[in-house]
């Protein structure tokens, strides 16, 4: 990982192709790495047609690359963290040694929590339009009833996130107060208060990957990927324990998370961070979400990639040696990806 750039906002006023955001992002990455677009061996993006409201929404984004002569390019209909996975796999084949991964999403174009009901079973769930915030509310109460967490623990997550976001210029929501004050705020999707839910966020971001010497040329201190894995749970509510995340645990086992100092977790709801910390087996001294995390900025289809970028930046700026980036996709933490990075070793 040798470059990371991001843009976030509550409402982006431009086109859903987000070409206007991608162009300056790519420029920033060329600046960071010294690469030009001709140095990039593979391009891979993540985005969603339903977020944009039209088929083939990713196609115009190719313009931002400047794709003549043609490029080696692919796209996943997932958070761009999985585009990073595809690019990483491609590097492992030896076919390429550099890749630029990007994602974009204009969540504000539609009613996000309603649009996400289209991710559910189309026969037995979507016709009821269960919105994503309500599903999270049901999940949160299950954990409260099982005494796995309580409202105070959830408020503590929000409080820490909002406080940390004060030093993150990319956060769209910030300003911690106190756990007591947060608990005094009104309920929204009971037992969730608004600060327990990620803000609807538009954005785009991009990461540059490079192998071996290409990485050393591009960055003083690359964040070397030592483990990258992902896993999925069933969607059906009857088929899994919603208070746990088996898929996160499986991904963590494959990627081998040990001795990480910082973890950036993609938890769009406060209680989901508690689920993830447990599922990933993170020690109590691991610093969680120093960026403020998804509760302070959750651009759909890039928020997961951002967690990896934020974690990598802590390594690249010398703050820590070993860090974890996590991404989630689908309803209620259905799909999880973990990326372990190290500054010292290769």
């Amino acid at each position, binding site marked *: 990982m040798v470059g990371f750039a991001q843009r976030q906002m509550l409402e982006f006023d431009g086109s859903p192709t987000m070409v206007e955001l991608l162009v300056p992002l790519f420029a920033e990455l060329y600046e960071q790495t010294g690469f030009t677009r001709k140095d990039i061996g593979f391009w891979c993006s993540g985005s969603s047609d339903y977020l944009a409201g039209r088929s083939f929404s*990713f196609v115009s984004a190719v313009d931002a690359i400047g794709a003549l*002569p043609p*490029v080696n390019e692919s796209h996943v209909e997932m958070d761009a963290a999985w585009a990073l996975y595809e690019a990483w796999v491609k590097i492992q084949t030896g*076919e390429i040694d550099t890749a630029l991964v990007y994602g974009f999403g204009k969540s504000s174009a539609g009613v996000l929590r309603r649009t996400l009901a289209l991710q559910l079973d*189309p026969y037995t769930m979507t016709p009821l339009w269960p919105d994503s915030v309500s599903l999270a509310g049901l999940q949160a109460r299950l954990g409260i009833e099982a005494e796995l967490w309580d409202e105070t623990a959830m408020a503590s997550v929000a409080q820490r996130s909002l406080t940390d976001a004060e030093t993150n210029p990319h956060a769209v929501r910030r300003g911690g107060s106190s756990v007591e004050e947060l608990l005094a705020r009104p309920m929204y999707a009971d037992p969730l208060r608004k600060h327990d839910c990620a803000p609807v966020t538009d954005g785009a971001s991009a990461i540059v990957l490079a192998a071996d010497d290409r990485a050393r040329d591009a960055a003083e201190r690359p964040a070397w990927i030592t483990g990258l894995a992902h896993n999925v749970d069933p969607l059906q509510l009857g088929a899994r324990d919603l208070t746990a995340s088996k898929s996160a645990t499986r991904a963590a086992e494959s990627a081998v998370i040990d001795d990480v100092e910082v973890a950036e977790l993609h938890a769009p709801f406060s209680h989901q961070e508690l689920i993830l910390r447990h599922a990933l087996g993170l020690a109590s001294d691991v610093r969680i979400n120093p960026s403020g995390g998804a509760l302070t900025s959750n651009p759909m289809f890039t928020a997961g990639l951002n967690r990896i970028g934020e974690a990598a930046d802590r390594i690249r700026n010398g703050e820590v040696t070993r860090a974890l980036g996590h991404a989630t996709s689908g309803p209620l933490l259905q799909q999880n990806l973990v990326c372990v990075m190290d500054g010292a070793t290769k």
Partner: protein
Amino acid sequence: MSKQPAAVVGVGQTHHRAKREDVSMAGLCREAIDRALLDANLSFDDIDAIVVGKAPDLFEGVMMPELYLAEALGAAGKPLLRVHTAGSVGGSTAIVAASLVQSGVHKRVLTVAFEKQSESNAMWALSVPVPFIMPVHAGAGGYFAPHVRSYIRRSNAPLHIGAVVAAKDRQNALKNPFAHLQNKDTTVESVLASQMLWDPIRYDETCPSSDGACALVIADADTAASVDNPAWIHATAMRSEPTTAAERDQVNPQAGRDAAAYLWKQAGITNPRREIDAVEMYVPFSWFEPMWLENLGFADEGEGWKLTESGVTAMTGDLPVNCSGGVLSSNPIGASGMLRFAEAALQVRGRAGEHQVDGVRRALGHAYGGGSQFFAMWVVGADKPAL
């Protein structure tokens, strides 16, 4: 880091039809998957990861359907990826699955691509009106027809070439029990007599709208060693370019030429016309056969139609193209590219049944998408490649 050998060890596809009302989306996918696993003599427990490919989500009205399908596809508890690269998606999905094995990350990967077009209307899904813009074109046919006209003008091809392709592929489809269209009476004359829809494209020169799925099991050398006649992956290539750009060649796109050049080089092929024994290329409108013959380097620019006209691309010719009946006979959009890759694998495995060409050692699978701008292709062979 070096590339590990990988091979197709299982192939499965559905009986493609206009409406598969007997199955759900999960049932459709499983029909292909179960056949691929049976072919590979493997079970779900043997599979390390699953890669799903599909064209736009608006076709079925489900956002990222692989999420709700995860359990039915046997993906729960495993890594699951979803690829979407427009019409080339079936091909690029197979390439992503192959790279998971070639990278050494996994040993056995299941990949499935599908489309259940009968759930909606592709012409609608592709033409959702955009504010401020005028809806002048009419679906994919309306989009590609002007470029076919350009090809005819540039190559001076006789006007019946499109009908030759359509009649050939429809006759080939009769030898493929999975093919959607089974029209015994299709001839060059009957194609020429069919309605002119998007002039210069006639009704019989267009692909049908199909429900269908295709699945492959791609495995490492150890697994392939225990399988009869695996189809070894000799080369893969993907290239993309913008939909529109000043002076972009839409008839013979550079992305296709670049991908082919890279592919042949990787596969150690210097004369594709001689060294490739069977071709499955993505021909949704009949004229794309001569266009892609040129784009892929089987013929010089402007000469592709001569191969078609002289019967070189017939099953009895020396470069048989789309012996399965091709996209012109079955078009479950998201799966169509993977079907090309799968049919190429069947040919080198000697498992293509009635549409088998004798003695195929190396075959090409090809897919394209968007405005002739996304290309995915592979060469599979009967022999393990020297890597």
